[in-house]
């Protein structure tokens, strides 16, 4: 994994986002180059919309958003190719009924021979000790297993960055810990939107969203202290 040493990973310049005549994000200006960025904020503060901008699922109404050097408005496909997205509910993300088939799905559009695709699927499942789930029906899996399968289906595409939108919200403690340690071991750039503040303690930087604005941007300790104080007031 090659990181863009010294270059900007996210570059937001006066980004505004309006949806259904409602302004969701206001004049976002932020540039990051760190490996792991945490995003916190109250419900409806705009953090999930921010996450969706990073993958091109939403595009700015005005302003410029560059992800890994690609403009979200102009090169949405390039952005999507390089940025994986893990949703809160893996049930919405897993498309095929059988685990191996779902993980392989993304590779099918890439002209990779079938044998190589199969080998890649086995490799990614082995990496997370999930090879025994290869031929299982998706709906028979536990929440934690589903989340790991969703992550595997993203990782197999070898993205440079992965955006997680509250990936541990629906998980029990054991599965939450498994997903958390997997995120911490990733070589890719990570942007993690979460309410689980403990997850962010070893992150490089945390952005706190409030009413569609970045209200705090600091080290995890400082940002989380600010956020807790804000939530208590």
């Amino acid at each position: 994994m090659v990181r863009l040493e010294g270059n900007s990973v996210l570059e937001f310049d006066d980004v505004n986002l309006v949806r259904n005549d409602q302004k969701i994000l206001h004049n976002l200006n932020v540039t990051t180059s760190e490996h792991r960025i945490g995003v916190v904020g109250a419900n409806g503060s705009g953090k999930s919309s921010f996450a969706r901008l990073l993958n091109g699922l939403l595009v700015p109404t005005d302003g410029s958003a560059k992800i890994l050097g690609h403009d979200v408005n102009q090169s949405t496909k390039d952005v999507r190719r390089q940025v994986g997205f893990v949703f809160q509910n893996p049930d919405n993300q897993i498309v095929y009924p059988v685990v191996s088939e779902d993980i392989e799905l993304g590779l099918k559009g890439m002209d990779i021979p079938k044998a190589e695709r199969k080998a890649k699927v086995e490799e990614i499942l082995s990496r997370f000790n999930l090879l025994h789930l290869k031929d299982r029906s998706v709906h028979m899996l536990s929440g934690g297993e589903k989340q790991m399968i969703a992550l595997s289906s993203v990782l197999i595409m070898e993205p440079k960055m992965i955006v997680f939108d509250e990936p541990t919200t629906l998980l029990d403690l054991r599965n939450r810990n498994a997903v958390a340690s997997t995120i911490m071991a990733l070589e890719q750039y990570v942007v993690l939107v979460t309410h689980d503040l403990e997850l962010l303690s070893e992150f490089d930087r945390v952005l706190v969203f409030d009413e569609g604005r970045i209200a705090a941007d600091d080290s995890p300790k400082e940002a989380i202290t600010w956020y807790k104080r804000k939530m208590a007031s």
Partner: protein
Amino acid sequence: MDLSFYLHGNSILHKMPTWSKFALLVVFSIAFYAIYDFKVLIAILALVILLVAYIKVPLKRLKAMFALPLFMVVLFSIFSFVVNDLNAGLLTFFRLSSLVILAACVTVTTKIEDFMAFIENLLLPLSFIPFIKPKTVSLTLSLTLRFIPEIFKLGMDIKEAQAARGLRSNPIALIVPLIVLTLKRADDISDALDARMLD
């Protein structure tokens, strides 16, 4: 509720290409209707039952796979008996039973992925028609197979939540939230498809 019936195995049927299994199924379906000799039809039924044993389908799976189709076969046979005669009823029973069991053998030995690839290839000659996109059709079928159990579970959850609030079973009270939640779910799935570049 499991709609993925594939069973691991190394049988000849497992190894055969998907197109050849479906081609054989079509050929057999036509051939069965050309046979009027009960001895031959009973022998064919015995052979397809042996095929099930050869593929080693577990008993639990057998019930899930055959209960509804065989019930339908019995209904059709009774209908044929009432409308025609006993001979026609028995012919319908033996022909359809063999066919249903044979089709089930193809189902349990074919991975969904291979089935989808087969559908895609089958539709390829029609892809010049603007609204027929083989990849989209195959993805739609996959999504259907994937989400029928999920929607079923969603319905059970709604029913349970209503029962917990003391509401009696009411189809309208079930269907309305089920439709709303399914539409919301469809929206989320559409986002996920976009994120995975499957648009």
